[in-house]
C-alpha cells in the first residue's frame, strides 16, 4: 500500500508570456481603431486569468504493485502491474507517473511511465516487464506529477511502496581451486608440509616407538638393519574466506555490462561449492563501505546461508555503495572476524593500487592469500588499454611478491584460468 510523501507545488511558467498577447492586441487595436485586435485582448486576458487562478490538483494516490514473481532466478522475466487510484477529491487532468524501478533492474518490455487524466476514484494501470538480477531490489517510490487544466501549475508527490524482489541464484557448478598450505586441525584434502599420515611422500625419519607398523620402511631395514619410519604429507581441511572487492572500483563492468563483483560472486559460489565438498570450511566477506560477513562453515545449512547472503547481503549489493570507503577500517573488520588460520581468496579486478595494498596487508596479518582477479577491462580504447596495462603490472607485482594470482578473462571458463595459473605455482 502507500505512504503519501509531502508534495512540491510549482509553476510551470508555460503561460508566462501570455499577458504580452493582451498588450499586443491592445496596442494594435488602439492604433488601428479596429475591434478585432481589441478582442484578442480578451483571449490573452482569459488565458492569463485561468493560468493565474487555477491551482494544481490534489494528488492523493493509492498505488499497488502486482508482481508475477517476487523470488525469481537471475534472468527471469518478471511482469509488473502498477495500479494507481486517485483517492483525492479533485480530477487530475494531467497525471504523469513514473514507477520506481530499482536501479539494478532493466525494463525488458513496456515502460514504467505513463500519463493520463484521472477522475476522483479513477484508476489507471501500468504494465511492464523487468529482467531479474541477483540481489534484493526494493522499488523506489512512485513519482507522480499532477498538472492543472491548462498546465500552468503542477504538484509533485512521491508515493512509497514496500515492494521488493529477492533474486537468489543457485550455487553454480563447482570448480576446484588448489589451496595453499595454511590449514586447520581437521583432516581434509589439503596437502601440508607437515609430516604424518597421508598419501604423498614427505621424509624418512628414525623410528620412534609407537609408530604404526605399516609406515616402517622395511626395505631400509632389510638393507641396513636400521628401523626407519616413512612420513607422508599430512592432509588437513582448510578454512577459506572469500573476500570480495565491493568498493566502487569493484563494480567496473565488462562489455556485457556485468560487473566484476557479479563475476566474483559467481566464482565464489562455484569455488565454495567444491571446497565444501572436500570438507573445507568456507566463508565470505564484502570488502567495501557496506559489510556483510558469512563466517566459515560447512554443511547443507551453511551452503544455503552462504548462497542467500551472497545474493542478498547488503555488502554484495548489485549496485555500488558510494559512501566513503576507509581501507584501515575494512581491514580491521577482516582481522577481527576472519579466523587467523584462514586462507583468503581475495576477489578483485585489481584496477587500482588499493587492491595490491590490501593483498600485502592481508598477507602481513598471516593469511595465505590467493588473488582471483576477473579481467573485465577491454582494450578497445586508449584509456581502457592503459587501465588494462596498469592492471597487468599490478597482477605481476602481486604474483612476484606475494604468490598466487588467478587472472581470469571472464570470456573464458574459470577452470581454464585456474589451470593456467596453477602451472606457474610452486606449493
Amino acid at each position, binding site marked *: 500500500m502507500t505512504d503519501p510523501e509531502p508534495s512540491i507545488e510549482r509553476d510551470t511558467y*508555460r503561460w508566462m508570456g*501570455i*499577458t504580452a*498577447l*493582451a*498588450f*499586443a*492586441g*491592445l496596442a*494594435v*487595436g*488602439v*492604433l*488601428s*481603431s*479596429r*475591434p*478585432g*485586435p*481589441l*478582442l*484578442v*485582448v*480578451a*483571449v*490573452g*486576458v*482569459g*488565458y*492569463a*486569468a*485561468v493560468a*493565474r*487562478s487555477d491551482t494544481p490538483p490534489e494528488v492523493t494516490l493509492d498505488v499497488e504493485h502486482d508482481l508475477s514473481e517476487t523470488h525469481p532466478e537471475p534472468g527471469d522475466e518478471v511482469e509488473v502491474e502498477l495500479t494507481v487510484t486517485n483517492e483525492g477529491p479533485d480530477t487530475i*487532468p*494531467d*497525471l*504523469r*507517473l*513514473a514507477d520506481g524501478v530499482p536501479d539494478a533492474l532493466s525494463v525488458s518490455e513496456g*515502460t514504467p*511511465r*505513463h*500519463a*493520463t*487524466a484521472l477522475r476522483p476514484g479513477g484508476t489507471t494501470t501500468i504494465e511492464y516487464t523487468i529482467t531479474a538480477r541477483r540481489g534484493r531490489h526494493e522499488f523506489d517510490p512512485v513519482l507522480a*506529477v499532477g*498538472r492543472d*487544466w*491548462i*498546465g500552468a501549475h503542477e504538484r509533485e508527490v512521491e508515493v512509497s511502496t514496500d515492494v521488493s524482489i529477492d533474486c537468489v541464484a543457485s550455487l553454480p557448478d563447482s570448480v576446484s581451486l588448489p589451496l595453499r598450505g595454511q590449514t586447520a586441525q581437521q583432516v581434509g584434502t589439503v596437502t601440508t608440509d607437515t609430516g604424518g599420515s597421508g598419501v604423498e611422500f614427505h621424509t624418512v625419519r628414525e623410528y620412534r616407538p609407537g609408530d604404526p607398523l605399516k609406515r616402517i620402511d622395511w626395505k631400509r631395514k632389510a638393507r641396513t638393519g636400521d628401523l626407519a619410519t616413512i612420513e607422508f604429507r599430512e592432509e588437513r581441511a582448510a578454512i577459506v574466506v572469500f573476500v570480495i572487492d565491493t568498493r566502487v572500483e569493484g563494480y567496473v563492468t565488462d562489455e556485457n555490462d556485468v560487473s566484476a563483483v557479479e563475476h566474483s560472486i559467481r566464482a565464489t559460489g562455484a569455488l565454495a561449492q567444491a571446497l565444501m565438498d572436500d570438507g573445507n570450511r568456507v566463508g565470505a566477506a564484502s570488502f567495501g563501505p557496506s559489510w556483510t560477513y558469512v563466517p566459515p562453515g560447512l554443511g547443507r545449512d551453511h551452503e544455503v546461508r552462504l548462497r542467500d547472503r551472497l545474493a542478498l547481503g547488503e555488502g554484495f549489493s548489485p549496485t555500488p555503495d558510494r559512501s566513503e570507503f576507509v581501507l584501515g577500517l575494512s581491514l580491521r573488520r577482516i582481522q577481527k572476524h576472519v579466523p587467523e588460520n584462514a586462507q583468503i581468496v581475495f576477489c578483485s579486478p585489481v584496477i587500482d593500487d588499493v587492491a595490491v595494498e590490501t593483498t600485502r596487508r592481508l598477507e602481513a596479518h598471516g593469511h595465505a592469500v590467493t588473488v582471483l582477479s576477473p579481467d573485465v577491462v577491454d582494450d578497445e580504447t586508449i584509456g581502457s588499454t592503459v587501465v588494462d596495462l596498469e592492471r597487468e603490472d599490478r597482477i605481476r607485482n602481486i604474483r612476484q611478491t606475494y604468490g598466487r594470482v588467478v587472472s581470469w578473462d571472464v570470456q573464458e571458463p574459470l577452470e581454464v584460468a585456474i589451470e593456467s595459473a596453477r602451472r606457474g605455482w610452486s606449493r
Partner: protein
Amino acid sequence: MSVLDEFVPEDDESLTQPTTYSRYVSLVAIAVGIVAVVPAMTGSLPFVTTGGVVLAVGVLRGDRTWLTRGYLLMIGGGLVHGAIGGTAIATVGTVIAATVAWDVAENGIGLAEQVGPDVAVGRAELVHAAAVALVGVLAGGAAIAVTFVFANNQPLPALVMLLFAVVILVATFRQG
C-alpha cells in the same frame, strides 16, 4: 513509425516529437488558424501562412524554438488581419487556433520527454487540448458576444478602456 516521425532528424537527439494526438491536434489547429483568414484575402495571409508553416515544422521536429517563432508570426498575422479590416471573428479565431496549436504541441513535447514518445497518453493529451481550446473559445466568444451586443451603443474608446482595465487587473494579480 508514422509518416510524421520522419521529420525528426535522427542526428539531433535533443529534439523529441510531441506525442501522437498532440501532433495531430496541433496541426489541425494550425490549419484552422490559416483557413480563418483565407476568405478575406488580406495582406495578413502571408504572415499567418508563414507562421503556420514554421509552427508546423516546430511540431514535426519537436523544436520549441520553431514553435515559438511560428506562434509569434501567426499571432502577428492575426493582429494585422484585424488591423487592416479583417473580421473580428477571423482575427480572434486565428489567435485562439495559434495559441492552441502552440500550447498543445509544447505540452506534447513535454509529455514525450517525460513518459516517452511511444507511450499511449491520449487521454491526458486530449483533456489538455480540450481545456486550452475551451478557455480560448469562452474568452474570445464572450468578447465577440459583448461586441455584438454593445458595440452599436458604446463608443470604442470605452471598450478599449474596459479591456485595458482588465489587463491591469490581471497584471496586478500576477504581481500579487
